[in-house]
């Protein structure tokens, strides 16, 4: 076993690594190409940064390319992203033209890479039209959708869905997110990388240093929510829950750690509302973190006793996964992918109101043994289900299925 696989085996368990090896045995030399829209920033790039080297370790000829485009292209894809998730946005025809042109140009640039690959993973809407500009393609093409397409803005969806018709399969994170499409729609939840900056084990000194940096008292109880300043994440509800719980846990501190508000007008507005609502309470710490402050977030998650993700609407909610991986019970809103991660009363609690969240916070601080036990169960649950190795195993399963004729039962010799 190579060094990198050994490192994953230590954290994810030998079983899944052995399975990866056995599945990959049949896929050695397979040319696998991933295409997305950025190498840096965002969950997709974060995962591809690890997934592609892992595929290579397993003997596949894996590569990763990005689509390039001008400002109009990215303006279009940002609007497309929002409209496909339900925002009523009208996109001018000129932007759609820029979108298609960028895809046509990228298809020409990548040329034989796209045409000769055995498996092509196209991530998200930005490069989706590439397929229509590759009539000479030989391999199987899979559209991997990381966003929620359950309630798209229909006029934009009608324009967009034509680009999906010829894909051999698609992959969605949850069944709730999948629209009706003609080819198989596989369901693969996202995952976290246990070896990334955001999830590696930190030393106690580093955690303490980060606490000190933000004026947190590491001897007092701490509750944390990490999320953008967005109304769907209900930061005001978190403060309400904190105030209700503090009556019973008087030393309690709250950290609301977010980021990206400076270039997001709505985020800045929500942050102001949150600051006003906190009434300069010295025990409420509202932190604006840089997009790449992964280690800081990691330290805050390690330092917290209880983590909240009190969203009223959520995609998958990888911040929940990250907190659970650090052995923390999570109190989460009863919505989206949070429901799939929090096993109520086992790995945390699902709540529907600030009052519900406060009650659970009180309960956990009143029952420290249970808090510990739930945290351990949460970490195990993530180990078994939400690490990158599991996601890779499912990708390999889909590749095997597609290259073996898509029968209901595929027996490999």
């Amino acid at each position, binding site marked *: 076993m190579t060094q990198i696989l050994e490192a994953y085996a230590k954290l994810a368990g030998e*079983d899944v690594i*052995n*399975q990866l090896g*056995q*599945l990959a045995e*049949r896929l050695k030399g397979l040319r696998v190409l991933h295409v997305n829209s950025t190498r840096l920033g965002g969950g997709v790039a974060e995962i591809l940064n690890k997934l592609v080297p892992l595929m290579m370790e397993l003997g596949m000829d894996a590569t990763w390319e990005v689509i390039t485009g001008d400002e109009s292209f990215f303006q279009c894809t940002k609007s497309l992203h929002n409209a496909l998730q339900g925002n009523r946005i009208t996109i001018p025809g000129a932007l759609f033209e820029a979108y298609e042109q960028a895809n046509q140009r990228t298809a020409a640039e990548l040329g034989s890479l796209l045409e000769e690959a055995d498996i092509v993973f196209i991530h998200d809407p930005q490069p989706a039209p590439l397929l229509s500009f590759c009539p000479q393609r030989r391999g199987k093409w899979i559209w991997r959708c990381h966003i929620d397409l359950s309630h798209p803005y229909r006029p934009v969806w009608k324009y967009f869905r034509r680009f999906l018709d010829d894909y051999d399969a698609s992959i*969605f994170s949850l*069944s*709730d997110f*999948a629209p*009706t*499409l003609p080819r*198989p*729609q*596989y*369901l*693969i*939840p996202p995952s976290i990388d246990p070896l990334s900056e955001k999830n590696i084990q930190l030393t106690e000194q580093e955690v303490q240093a980060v606490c000190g940096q933000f004026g947190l008292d590491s001897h007092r109880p701490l509750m944390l929510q990490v999320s953008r300043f967005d109304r769907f994440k209900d930061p005001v509800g978190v403060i309400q829950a904190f105030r209700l719980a503090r009556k019973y846990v008087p030393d309690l501190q709250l950290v609301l750690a977010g980021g990206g508000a400076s270039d997001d007008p709505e985020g800045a507005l929500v942050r102001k509302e949150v600051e006003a609502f906190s009434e300069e309470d010295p025990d409420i710490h509202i932190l604006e973190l840089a997009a790449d402050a992964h280690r800081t977030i990691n330290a805050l998650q390690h330092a917290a006793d209880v983590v909240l993700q009190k969203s009223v609407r959520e995609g998958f909610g990888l911040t929940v996964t990250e907190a659970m991986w650090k052995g923390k019970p999570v109190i989460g809103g009863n*919505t989206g992918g949070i*429901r*799939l*991660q929090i*096993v*109520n009363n086992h790995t945390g609690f699902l709540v529907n109101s600030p009052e519900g969240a406060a009650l659970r916070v009180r309960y956990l601080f009143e029952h420290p043994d249970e808090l510990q036990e739930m945290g351990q169960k949460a970490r195990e*649950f993530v180990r*078994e*289900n*939400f690490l990158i190795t599991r996601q890779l*195993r*499912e990708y*390999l*399963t*889909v590749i*095997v*299925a597609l290259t*073996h004729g*898509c*029968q*209901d*039962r*595929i*027996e*490999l*010799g």
Partner: protein
Amino acid sequence: MGHVETKKAGGQPFAVQDCALAAIATGRRAQNLRELRENLLTIHQDSIYYHFWGGLLRPRFDNPEYHNDFAIWSRYALNDLVLAERLGIIDPTEFRDLESLRQELIEVIEERLDESEHVPWAKSDSQFYFIRSQIVVFDTHWRIKTPKELAQAVPHMSVGSIFFHFIDARTHTQDGVDDFRAWLQEHFQGYEELCADLARIDPFFSGLSELRERLTIVFQSYFVR
């Protein structure tokens, strides 16, 4: 020793297989009990397989109080405890095939619809999504020659192997038994007692790791008798 190891002529080694399930959205869903019934009439039987057994190979997201997705949905989305209990007690191993299991599900649901004044509804964000599965089976190249070796191997098998040999096997062996019993019965004599012990394990109420532990105990206690 309570066993006599006699190998039948031409006996084959036990080939340890592993498997992975791929979940596929069918695009069909139900928001109320009547829609669940309508879909069950025609849904592909792989979907019934997935909603009964698939839970073992995917994250156990839901309360293990109920062991199939239909019961869980009845409890948590429809809030119909009676129906959840009736669906929860259905043991898929009692049915000779998935079609009979489908009929039983429909019977139970129709009975509940007959009893109810109103059709129970779920909230729009709690619909039942029908998912089907595709199973990929792969050879681990691990071969076991004797029952004693099998006893030593079981604790080291992956949960995928346990699922494949002890659960999935029942859907494709002739007598609906697991692969361990099928191999012992076909290739050896004198293991009736061990086979009876294995038959007593109810696979429906355990997670796969727990099931592996129970199998380990059965095998090990047999060989130290």
